[in-house]
């Protein structure tokens, strides 16, 4: 099918976008890569009275390292393909680099954006899971409040529901740079390469003197939002990274799935358990870095 009719605007600056969102935000949809929005519009699952195309806003382009090297900024127009090829991301945010392998198909990656994926908050998408794992900072801008920064762990409210208000534009995401001795892992199950995950796992921790510190273990595709396991972090803290611990943590995350949120809970638990064990075992075994 074709998208229903809409009004189209193509502003050239963030201020103009914010002005439009300020006056007409509740009727408007922001068009960046359009690789989720446009199919939804074509299928008539979604519609917009006003489509605000941000593709000409140059301020929203680019991937850059902050001066203090604390984070990598990914602008709202950075395509998945650019993130996948970015040396800055590969070096400083290995979790996202690893996750990009699972994001969609080539032609989709050429258009789709990292920030668009975050703003949409599809529960089986990779970028929200990475953002929660690393607690990335989402930077919103509006005419009334200017810049507002929201930690990823407070951004995702539910299915396609986030802390972004109708009058706000997600202008960039700030990915925290890896610390020394950190490890990251990512894996997912899907029916076809590049499709949305049936179950996915993302994790990061530090391994200092052979002991685990600050484990962030996230499952996604298993509920309305990426799920950070507080219990896994507590159990892993100070322990040695052994295959036995990987199994213990996998069981914890699988048990945490909520039968009210997931269909076929036993299958999802089994998949989560297997995937988490596989991924954590590999992550624990990787040789440590020299930092």
């Amino acid at each position, binding site marked *: 099918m074709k998208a*229903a009719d*809409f*009004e189209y605007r193509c502003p050239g600056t963030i201020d103009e976008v914010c002005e439009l969102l300020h006056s007409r935000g509740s009727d408007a949809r922001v068009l960046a890569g359009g690789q989720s929005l446009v199919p939804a519009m074509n*299928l008539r699952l979604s519609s917009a*009275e006003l489509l605000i195309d941000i593709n000409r806003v140059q301020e929203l382009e680019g991937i850059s390292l902050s001066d203090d090297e604390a984070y990598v900024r990914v602008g709202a127009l950075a395509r998945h*393909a650019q993130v996948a090829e970015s040396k800055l991301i590969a070096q400083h945010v290995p979790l996202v680099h690893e996750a990009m392998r699972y994001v969609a198909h*080539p032609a989709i990656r050429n258009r789709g954006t990292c920030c668009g994926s975050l703003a949409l908050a599809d529960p089986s998408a990779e970028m929200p899971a990475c953002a929660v794992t690393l607690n990335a900072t989402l930077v919103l801008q509006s005419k009334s409040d200017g810049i507002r920064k929201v930690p990823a762990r407070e951004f995702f409210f539910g299915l396609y529901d986030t802390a972004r208000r109708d009058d706000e534009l997600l202008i960039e995401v700030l990915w925290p740079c890896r610390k020394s001795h950190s490890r990251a892992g990512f894996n997912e199950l899907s029916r076809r390469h590049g499709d949305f995950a049936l179950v996915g796992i993302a994790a990061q921790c530090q391994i200092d003197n052979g002991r685990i510190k600050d484990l962030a273990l996230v499952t996604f595709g298993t509920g309305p939002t990426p799920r950070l396991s507080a219990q896994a972090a507590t159990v892993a803290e100070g322990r040695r990274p052994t295959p036995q611990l990987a199994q213990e943590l996998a069981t914890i995350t699988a048990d945490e799935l909520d039968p009210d949120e997931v269909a076929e809970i036993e299958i999802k638990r089994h998949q989560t358990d297997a995937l988490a064990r596989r991924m954590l075992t590999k992550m624990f075994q990787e040789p440590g870095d020299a930092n």
Partner: protein
Amino acid sequence: MRTNQVAEITLTINGERGSFSVPVRRNLVDFLRHDVGLTGSHVGCEAGICGACNVRVDGAVVRGCLMFAVQANGRAVDTIEGITASGEAAELQQAFIERNALQCGYCTPGMLMTGLELVNSGRVVSRDEIREELSGNFCRCTGYHAIVDAIEHVVERSRK
């Protein structure tokens, strides 16, 4: 709600510059087929899944059904007609023919677009990686074996 908004756009299609009036809701592949008369790019699912409508915009392969024509204003669009006329796709097309990598041919323009992007990238790729790369293109008659064969052949040759 109907706005019937129409936009004036100027773009380069297969190396030729042109100006058009398009309804803003018309997607790029419909525009190419109906307004420009380039029917080589095919319309399959209209939801970004099948890859039959793949075209290049500013050198990158994209889904023609997931971009509105108005978004191509000022951009350079290449279709299967363009890369055939220029000879850019000739080697890959020959490889498809030699290996019977098509039956009905509906998916072929999209397959060639995706395959050519892989060839042009100069990346060293395994068969598994070619399959991954093609995972966004559906073929409903031959299966993918001969298509992977054809792309692999050209990837290997272009590396030598």
